[in-house]
């Protein structure tokens, strides 16, 4: 009997494969893939919006075709989104931000081809792995998700936070303070238990919290633009081979196949967990890649493992999150929430019927196949155009900077409110300072994506299980052991190693800019604690528990910086002696590009996107880059066409009205 039952599963698996390979289903999938390709590459055009716009077309379709169409798109956006992250340092999709950290430095070293190839291959492997997870876990998925529960999610968040130490790039104090700052940002908004407005600075915009996309764009992309402008030349500072070591990248993904598989596993697991959010997996995978590497110093400067991890995880999560959607009708992420809507349109009810071979299992399996086949098509396609894509990194910076700035501001504009632009600018400034004073940025992002989750899952666990009995649950104990093994063992080892090292001779106490920045962190946490003091107990327990120790660490960090000025990150290519003349040139260029970033912002504020961007682009090209009239005008027209055409005409973006126009119409009406 079990054999016969197994046979039914296999039969469903093949029925599903045949059904998606039939015409016109396959054609619909190709259309979906084509849309997904573009959506992934373009920052500011999220897959959620795209899915919603595709919805009206599925009303009359058969379920298998509709899913091939929708999922064909949804399952390739992370694959192509990574390309933008690597080449330009701007996340193409919100779940591709982690690929920037090591992918973009590789592009700067002229190894864009290698990085993109590695990311593509790991994406493919991740997608296949995610599909396999979906296939194999179908009989087990309900007990698995249910046994996890809120206590499991709580332990998972703790595990995630322990990665902060690994991600600190050698300076654990700074990493912990940055992580604490991330948690502080995560707490911004109305608290979920007493509705206390926490750290909202009286701003309505912040009630829903700090939005992740503008933050990551500011934090990672703005420093890259500044860097590009200061160094001059193109994004790729050197060129290796014709397209930057594509074969090498493919080999890398096989060389580190174990890592790719583990990160796929992380992505799939996070994908399965509802309410964790699709951005978490990529960062945890990145953190794991760092943690499992023998030489962690390379990370952040172009370690290929840092590309492979997130690449695999952000694709395997698709399969994972569909598991929960199909089994419970509980969407684990944005894509699956939208696909759930498609279930309704198509008259399907998620639940056990979707998991039974005698009922709709073949439909579920067709989802698996769509994810796998879509990536099997997209990845080779990307390899075909890789050469053209990589070329962008070789175009001179003076041409590319206005385009990057446009993509940065468009990409940050996610909630259709002007506050997003302010966020991009604010976190751009923070990102610049962090880079300049030797702070790692990933711990901040980890704190941000996990902070809320940690607080929520803790209080839910305490409330739902009335006390702390849940600490004895098997899932909790297992995760606790993993945390202990993963963190304390290397920490103990490192302490032992450090004792053997000769202590550095302490330098003199001296106030420097780096120390001032660290002092700023001390002040922020002091204010945060002082602020929290008057809140209701439920609202203040968590911030106080976290921020009091962080304040102590921040003070220690400040004292350390006072003693030994942190080494400024040496601008690559100019190592060797730096003359005073060079320094003043660097300063000039820095001020210049910062002025332009502010200028773009003002242009957007006063004139809005359709006029502001082309105008600022033209002025930049003509004034700073000193390009010819022809090129300046052409690129200006292109930028205008891009904004008006794709975002205005096709996507009907709601651009904010320019402040000047509002003023103008007021004057007229008077």
């Amino acid at each position, binding site marked *: 009997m079990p054999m016969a039952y197994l046979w039914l599963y296999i039969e469903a698996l093949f029925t599903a494969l045949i059904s998606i390979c039939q015409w016109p289903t396959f054609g619909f999938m190709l259309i979906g893939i084509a849309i997904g390709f573009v959506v992934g590459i373009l920052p500011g055009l999220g897959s959620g919006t795209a899915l919603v716009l595709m919805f009206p077309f599925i009303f009359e379709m058969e379920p298998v075709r509709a899913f091939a169409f929708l999922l064909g798109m949804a399952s390739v956006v992370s694959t192509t989104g990574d390309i933008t992250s690597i080449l330009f340092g701007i996340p193409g999709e919100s779940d591709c931000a982690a690929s920037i950290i090591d992918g973009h430095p590789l592009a700067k070293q002229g190894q864009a081809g290698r990085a993109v190839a590695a990311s593509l291959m790991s994406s493919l492997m991740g997608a296949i792995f995610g599909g396999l997870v979906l296939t194999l876990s179908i009989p087990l998925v309900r007990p698995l998700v249910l046994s996890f529960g809120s206590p499991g999610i709580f332990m998972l968040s703790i595990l995630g936070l322990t990665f902060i130490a690994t991600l600190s790039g050698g300076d654990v104090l700074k990493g912990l303070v940055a992580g604490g700052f991330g948690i502080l940002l995560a707490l911004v908004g109305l608290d979920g238990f007493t*509705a206390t407005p926490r750290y909202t600075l009286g701003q309505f915009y912040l009630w829903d919290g700090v939005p992740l996309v503008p933050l990551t764009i500011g934090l990672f992309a703005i420093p890259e633009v500044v860097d590009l402008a200061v160094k001059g030349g193109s994004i790729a500072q050197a060129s290796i081979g014709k397209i930057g070591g594509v074969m090498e990248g493919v080999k890398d993904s096989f060389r580190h196949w174990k890592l790719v598989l583990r990160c796929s596993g992380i992505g799939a697991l996070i994908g399965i967990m509802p309410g964790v959010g699709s951005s978490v997996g990529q960062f945890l995978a990145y953190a794991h890649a760092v943690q499992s590497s023998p030489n962690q110093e390379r990370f952040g400067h172009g370690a290929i493992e840092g590309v492979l991890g997130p690449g695999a995880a952000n694709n395997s999560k698709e399969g994972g999150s569909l598991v929960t959607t199909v089994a419970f009708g509980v969407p684990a992420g944005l894509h699956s929430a939208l696909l759930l809507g498609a279930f309704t349109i198509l008259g399907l009810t998620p639940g056990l019927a979707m998991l039974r071979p005698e009922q709709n299992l073949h439909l579920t399996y067709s989802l698996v196949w769509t994810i796998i086949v879509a990536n099997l098509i997209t990845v080779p396609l990307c390899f075909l155009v890789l050469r053209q894509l990589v070329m962008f990194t070789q175009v001179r910076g003076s041409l590319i900077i206005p385009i990057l700035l446009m993509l940065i501001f468009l990409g940050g504009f996610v909630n259709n409110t002007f506050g997003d632009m302010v966020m991009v600018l604010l976190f751009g400034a923070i990102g610049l300072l962090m880079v300049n004073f030797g702070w790692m940025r990933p711990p901040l992002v980890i704190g941000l994506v996990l902070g809320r989750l940690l607080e929520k899952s803790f209080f*839910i666990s305490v409330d739902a299980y009335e006390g702390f009995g849940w600490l004895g649950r098997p899932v909790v104990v297992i995760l606790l052991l993993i945390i202990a093994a993963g963190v304390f063992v290397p920490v103990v080892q490192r302490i032992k190693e450090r004792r053997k090292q000769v202590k550095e001779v302490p330098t003199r106490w001296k106030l420097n800019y780096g120390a001032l920045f660290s002092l700023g962190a001390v002040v922020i946490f002091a204010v945060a604690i002082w602020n929290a003091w008057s809140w*209701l107990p439920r609202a203040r327990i968590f911030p106080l528990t976290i921020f009091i120790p962080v304040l102590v660490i921040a003070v220690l960090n400040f004292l350390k910086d006072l003693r030994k000025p942190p080494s400024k990150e040496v601008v690559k290519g100019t190592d060797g002696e730096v003359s005073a003349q060079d320094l003043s040139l660097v300063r000039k260029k820095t001020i210049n590009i910062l002025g332009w970033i502010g200028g773009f912002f003002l242009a957007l504020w006063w004139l809005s996107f359709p006029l502001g961007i082309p105008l600022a682009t033209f002025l930049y090209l003509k004034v700073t880059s000193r390009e010819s009239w022809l090129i300046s005008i052409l690129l200006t027209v292109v930028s205008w066409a891009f904004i008006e055409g794709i975002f205005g005409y096709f996507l009907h973006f709601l651009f904010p009205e320019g402040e000047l126009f509002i003023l103008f119409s007021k004057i007229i009406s008077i």
Partner: protein
Amino acid sequence: MKIKKRFLAITVIPGLLFLLYASLIPTSDPIAPITLALSPNPVLAASGSPSFAGKTIRIIVGYSPGGGFDTLSRVLARHMSRHFPGNPTILVANMTGAGGAVSFNYVYSRAKPDGRTWVTSDGALILSKILGIPGPNFDVEKFPWLGVAQESHTVCLVMTRTGIKTADQFLKSKKRIRIASTVPGDSVHIRPIMAAQAVGANFKLILGYHGTSGMRLAMHGNEADAACWGWQSMKVTGADMMKRKEAIPILQIGFGRHPDLPKVPNILDFPMSQDDKKMLRLVMGPGSIAKIFAAPPGTPPEILKVLRRGFADTLKDPKLRAEAKKLKISLVYTPPEKITQIIKEMISTPTELKKKVAKIARPG
């Protein structure tokens, strides 16, 4: 040099193609910001009768793509055009923030009152304004409502493993009943909590779940015994649970019994004090205006008239009804006069009762 040429080729050609495209289609309106600023009210033509010919109407949704508000608005938008003079293009734009309040504030204080920008939002925002909770910055009585397209009739769903079979057992249980919920002040929190207060039920609200889907999962995973949310969504998302008798609808928290559930008792059927009844009615009020549409204040009356008529006609449209049925969206139409009446009743609740409710909705 070679690179420059190639780069120009791939950037310039699409640009020129677009220019060609834009010039062929007159509606692309590339200088919209300028014309918008210069013309005071383009919809009201010189002739007097408003026409939206060649114009665009935007419905601003305060929530993310794919959610209930978004789906509803997009379905309406697809069928609206033919019910407005001049057949305008109807678009949906998402502007998220502060539980929909950002979009509400935007349309109230910044959007041009020319009938071309509307907002849809949650009746709960109106309640929080009436309760005097800081946040949404508008005058409830000055917002020109267009109508309501959907109600939200709260029903409590209880897991059968608890052994509870009747509303009486549910409300008088000695054992604490854990009710999954999201954030304080949300209807899935405040309605069960006010119901429990009115009849002395032994409920424990577990806050923190992510939407009703998170609440459902909590019930599956035995973190909660029950949850109360809108029947309009429950009959779709809870269908599997109810079909397999894992959970049953046990109590209604709305005005009267829903036609789908004639046998499930309503909380108002149980004895309670007048004050408790008033407070319950106050928190149930937003359910009748759950998905409300509005235009900016200052919209000229003749335009408003056209908008209201168009809105009402859209909701009668059989094509829309058919599509909504397929999407399992329940539609109602509540006219603006009825909305004003509902809101007036909410406002008329005695101040000390409002304060009590506000304390529960927003303790911090």
